[in-house]
């Protein structure tokens, strides 16, 4: 009898110990948090651009909503103290005007862990002249109908000539990248040079039949559907009338979709088209670019482990880029390479009838505005309510006779 009790007691003890041991062991040596220092270094690759005088340095921990701003001198190194251990996006930016040009300097590292003291982080910084064509305003989140339904046919993309010279949008492409929404599960692309490309799910192209000149201060509107969306059969609550849009992504007519006055874009790449080009209302990642060779849909590429069809776009050919995410917390789930867009913009929800648009950097004497273009959408864009096409006095091009 005594032995049975002993065996029972030992068995019970062993059971308890085994069940809890690992969990207790895991936390036994965890100490209190301490702030850290981090050393940020700039590695300059400026080409022919002049050297900047210094940098603004921003460290953002999106999970903690914690941000540290400081400056870096011309020596290219700064030690930042008081850092909460975590995952950071570190951005270096600067600007310099010289010889009649404005040079933007930017570089960042995304999702770098800062969990050890005095960790050295090198940020590669490139230089570019401010872009000529920029995505000026994008309305992607859709609107609510009077009955509470969701309406998404009124999306538009406005492209603006932010330069001092005439630009030609003939053959200009707009692409939405894979993955369509912000996610931690980024696809793995094959090839040693995979990082030199972005990968489009869909590409639409301005027709290449004639020239479409765009003067400084003029913009074009690419509408999903270039109609008056306030019509009773569409959505009287929609904030936009897009009848004056220059282009639309028309596919075919339905009871709601008609071929409007806008010029029809060319569906250059879309392996599985649907009746309308609905881009995600949670926020996609967009690039505009001029392809150096004609787009051949047969030359698609698939990520590792997937059969989805995508199209490679060389980063060098990208004119402008904009990463959109579902909410501010998703900025850390970036899909776009930092060299194209170091941040991300968001309206913070869906069907809100609001857009994102670039901030005004300066207004010329003739009223023409110059928009921010630092290749960091977190800095360059703001939420605009309501969405308005050709805001800030932007003009429609002269060849738009239906405006």
């Amino acid at each position, binding site marked *: 009898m005594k032995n049975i*009790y002993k065996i029972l*007691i030992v068995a*019970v*003890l062993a059971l*308890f110990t085994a*069940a*809890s041991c690992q*969990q*207790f062991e*895991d*936390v036994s040596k*965890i*100490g*209190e*948090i*301490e*702030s850290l220092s981090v050393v940020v270094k700039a590695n300059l690759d400026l080409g022919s651009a002049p050297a900047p005088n210094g940098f603004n340095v921003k460290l953002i921990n999106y*999970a*903690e*909503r*914690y941000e540290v701003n400081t400056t870096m001198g011309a020596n290219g190194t700064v030690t930042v103290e008081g850092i*909460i*251990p*975590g*995952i950071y996006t570190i951005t270096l930016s600067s600007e310099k005007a010289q010889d009649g040009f404005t040079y933007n300097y930017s570089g960042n590292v995304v*999702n770098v*862990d800062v*969990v050890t003291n005095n960790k050295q982080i090198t940020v590669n910084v490139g230089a570019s002249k401010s872009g000529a064509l920029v995505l000026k305003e994008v309305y992607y989140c859709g609107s609510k109908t009077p009955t*509470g*339904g*969701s309406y998404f046919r009124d999306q538009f993309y406005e492209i603006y000539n932010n330069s001092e010279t005439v630009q030609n949008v003939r053959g200009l492409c707009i692409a939405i990248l894979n993955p369509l*929404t*912000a*996610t*931690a*599960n*980024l696809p*793995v692309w094959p090839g040693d040079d995979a990082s030199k490309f972005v990968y489009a799910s869909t590409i639409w192209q301005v027709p290449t039949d004639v020239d479409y000149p765009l003067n400084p201060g003029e913009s074009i509107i690419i509408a999903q559907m270039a109609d008056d969306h306030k019509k009773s059969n569409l959505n009287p609550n929609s904030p936009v009338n897009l009848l004056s849009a220059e282009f639309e992504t028309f596919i075919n007519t339905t009871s709601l979709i008609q071929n409007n006055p806008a010029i029809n874009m060319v569906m250059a790449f879309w392996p599985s088209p649907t009746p309308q080009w609905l881009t*995600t209302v*949670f926020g996609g990642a967009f690039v505009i670019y001029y392809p150096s060779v004609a787009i051949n849909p047969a030359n698609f590429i698939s990520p*590792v*482990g997937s059969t989805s069809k995508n199209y490679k776009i060389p980063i060098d050919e990208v004119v402008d880029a904009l990463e959109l995410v*579902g*909410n*501010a*917390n*998703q900025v850390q789930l970036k899909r776009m390479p930092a060299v194209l867009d170091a941040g991300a913009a968001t309206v913070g*929800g*869906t*069907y809100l009838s609001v857009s994102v648009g670039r901030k005004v950097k300066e207004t010329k004497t003739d009223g023409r505005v110059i928009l921010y273009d630092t290749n960091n959408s977190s800095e360059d864009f703001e939420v605009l309510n309501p969405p308005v096409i050709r805001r800030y006095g932007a003009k429609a091009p002269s060849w738009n006779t239906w405006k």
Partner: protein
Amino acid sequence: MRKVKYIYWAGALIMTLITTNSAVAQEAAKQNSPASIELLKAKSLWFNTNNAAGLTLDKMHDYSDLNFQYKIKSGDFKKSHDGEKESTLGVSTEGGLKLSGGYVWGKFSYNNETLRNTLYNTTMINPERGMPFYTVDKNMSDWKRQNYKLEMKVASKPLWDKYIVGIQGEYVTSTGAKQVDPRSVGYFYTITVKPGIAAMFGKHSVGVNMVYQNLVEETRTTNSNGQLSQDVYVVKGLGNFYSAVVGGLQSLGQFVYSGNKIGGDIQYSYGISDINFILSGNYHLRVEDVISSPTKPKKEGTIKEEMMSANLTVTKSCDNFHRLDLSYSVNNSSGIEYVQVLDNTYEVQRWVDVYSSVRSTYNQIDMVAKYDFFRGAAHEYKWKAGLFANYRDNDDLYILPKSKMRVENLFFGINAKTNIPLKLANRLILGADFIYKNNINGYYIYKGADATSPVITQFMTPDMQYSRQDYYKIGGEVSYFTNISRSNKSGMFVKVAADYYKPVEGEGNRMQTTIGLGFTF
């Protein structure tokens, strides 16, 4: 659902066993009543320890009861997650039985609760159970909850006239659902096992027991209106949070809480003449992990809780009965947070810890002194009176960025009951109590990322104002007991009780009314 059925039938079985056994086995015993059961428990030194082995030493007589009660709370003097109105329908049954020189005891209870117009609790069945990592939202909502609790204690007869072995078990399971988007459904369970042993050395007795508890809570969030995503806040202590969304492609995933508690207690009791005392102490350690999206688990946090307490109970039983309880307990919890990166390798795709640290601490000191006097120490008391004082100090800290919360309260209470005999062995119990809470110290300093967020302005700050308010509570109860069997072994009682809470300064109040029907065997 299958679990719920098992619990239902197990509860029904316990109820049947308790009522029939006690009716059969109780030999020439006096009739049990609510007053006699209350006195029986007051006299039992080991009953309220974690060591079931001591039940045999308590020499309790057989008893059992069955209670039905309906409770309503209403009023705006409350915390955010409490309901403006709450109703609880409950049934419980409890009984103890001498068996072969030992003692067995069991209890089953079931409660069905409806909470109207709660705020800032999206997922937790019990947001006050010491878990800082959970989800809140701004939408006012009802909650529906039900819980089942099964408890049992078994003590052997003295073995070799010296040793008593015992085991105590508890199984609790709860379900709950929030009724407005973002809505949630949650499941919670704990199973607790406490094996113990006691040894007798003349008038001295010593005991030791272990404690093991396993805990699981699962919560899922969803929207009824799939067209409208809902913003939520995943809080992690002292108002710090991260934002998330319920609905859409990036919807907040399922949360799974899994914890274990181990620990041990020691007891020493001594009896001299009509004075008995028991001194007990314990140390318990709980670790509970919180993960989201269990198919690709991401750690939301871990709580490590250390609990220590020392208790002294002294009783003096002569014509009257005196009981003095003194206790001191310390509860230190640490909120652990993790820095994780996603290993995006195609075949792997998992979150990997790169850093972990204690981000927050929650320390509580609790001291209680309680004295009860029972006039008449035989089977029932004639009247009783008691008073207590309770000092409680909660000192919470979020280390980086530093936020601090401190609430230091002193409670005073006085209560009395009279057990008035009526004709035909019927009894009327009248009771009244008064509690005064004096806030000695209370402040909340938030230095986190977003001091203007609703989590701070509409949740943490109002709850802090509630915690630091002085208030008084006036309570009263009336219970009528009558015999319902020819053998005078079974009785029935009806009870009405009311408690009224009122802050000393400011508006608001809270009223709790209870109506009960019970049977004793």
